[in-house]
């Protein structure tokens, strides 16, 4: 049992992102209100962003800005990659955040459209209204 806890504790970032992702997925599937579904969608995407950000982390490392002697003056001095966290996943996530914000914006605009047309965002009511036609 302790081994299991150790395993979970050692890789807690993965467990965290999976739990968050499943919360988001649950909201997208089970919630009746379109706005709540959208929030679920955002949680789902944020979980993946969290996962990416966490994989760039290293123990005893700092932000990836070259320090002191290694700067412009210190040509030829060795730079240890282990001293700096990996910036690539973070940079990738900047793009992914833009994508998720854009998706959220488009989806909200669509919600506004639906609301203007039917005066409701509850999915069962919408389904009822659509089947009447």
């Amino acid at each position: 049992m302790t081994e299991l806890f150790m395993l979970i504790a050692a890789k807690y970032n993965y467990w965290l992102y999976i739990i968050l992702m499943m919360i988001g997925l649950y909201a997208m599937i089970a919630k009746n209100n379109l706005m709540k579904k959208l929030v679920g969608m955002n949680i789902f995407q944020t979980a993946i962003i969290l996962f990416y950000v966490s994989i760039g982390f290293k123990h005893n490392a700092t932000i990836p800005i070259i320090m002191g002697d290694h700067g412009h003056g210190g040509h030829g001095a060795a730079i240890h990659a282990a001293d700096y966290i990996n910036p690539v996943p973070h940079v990738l996530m900047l793009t992914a955040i833009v994508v998720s914000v854009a998706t959220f914006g488009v989806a909200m605009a669509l919600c506004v459209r639906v609301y203007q047309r039917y005066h409701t965002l509850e999915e069962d009511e919408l389904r009822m209204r659509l089947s009447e036609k």
Partner: protein
Amino acid sequence: MIHYPAVVVIASLLGAFIAGILAWVQERYTYPAALIATGISCAAAVWDLIYVAGHGPIAYHMAGWAPPMGIEYRIDTLNAMVLVLITAIAFLNLAASWPNVKQEMPDRSPSFYVMYLLFVVGLTGVASTGDLFNLYVLIEITSLSSYTMIALGDRDRGPISALNYVFVGVIGASFYLLGVGYIYIKTGTLNMAEFAAMIPNIQDSTTILTAFILCIVGVFIKMALFPLHVWLPNAYSYAPVGFARIVAPLMTKVMVYVMVRLMITVFGLDYIFIKLHIADTIVWLGTIAILAGGVMALAQTNLKKMLAYIIVCEIGYMVGGAWLGNDSGITGAVLHILNDGIMTFALFLAVGNMVYKLDRVEIKDLKGLFAGMPWTMTGFVLAAFSIVGVPPTCGFFSKWYLILGAFEAGAWHFAAALLISSLICAVLFFKVFEVCFFESPDTHDGPGSDAHGHHTTVAIQEAPAISLAVLGIAGISLIVVGLYSKTIVVRLIWPLLNP
């Protein structure tokens, strides 16, 4: 350095900006700007294809950054073919759909053209990039622009179907993104070629297995493989005609291209067919998709919905064919990307012409259409024959390779499904032909009166000339691509499989 691979994508991107500005300044110049932009893209794509067929793959470094750091566009014969398909359909459709756009959204046509160009940017980018993360971003550009355009369609149901598409599409893209994350953890690279060189040494890794499954499931959701298809029929049938004509032939086909690219270039056929034992399962999934798509298409009373379910069925062809695990199967699947693109385009062109004149396309409303719209119906019949698989049209040849592949692999269920679906398609289309040809329009009450002569109230007339001309080009290319399919297979597809 050759800059054509970048021109294909950038021409449409710049076109979108320019068209967006023109929409503020002088609205009527938006359309010519869009037409010119897609035309330049198309010319560059054709040039790519000619170059690649003669000289081998192009590796284009975006902005001069070398691959592991920068983004690489890698054009081989497969991309080049798909790029020509995308840009040619984008250009022709823009020409054909001008009357439809003017009719359906007179007030919002400039925004439609801008989103249309962004959609083309996404598709061409997906088809040319050699970077796994860049692929995700471009898939999302494609999806975002298609959400907005679907919402521009049917006023009652358009926004709702677009929202459902958003939810499913986000899940698909996120799964793919997660898969790319696992690839990055294991290898530290996002470049397809660099990853492919590493894969022989890390075949046993469960991380790679997880990455592969996540990527493939994401792509399956995006391409609407059968149990994951629910978003597609509504989204495609409530979209405006000008957009349905491009999204139906291209979106799913480009996602099939992504799947083939992941299989051939990224993970490699050795890893997929020798190391993993999931090919049989996926061929079964393809079989089920073919049968389910066909049966659901039979149940439809609306022509657009029927065609949407036929797309679900065709996806089964390509997925099953690609996973058969022999050269004939993959050849058939890749050839079917091209052929199905053209067939679906021709079908939706014809349907768009009907919508232009009739407004709604319930099958029972199509009475007497052969007399009213002879040219549109000729194109429709030709495309329908191609879907069924009648020999001189291109649909026959890809189906032939698929069936050969199924026999070689001993996948009898898949071969049977292919034949049954041909039968189902024949039934479907003859059901439509019967209504269009034999039943006279409702304008007459008496059973004895014949179709021509007495069009008193609503006479159905032929669609605008430009739409018909494009339909003619699509119809002719159905036959030309069919006749030259041997050349296409030998020059473009086999070099890919046996480099």
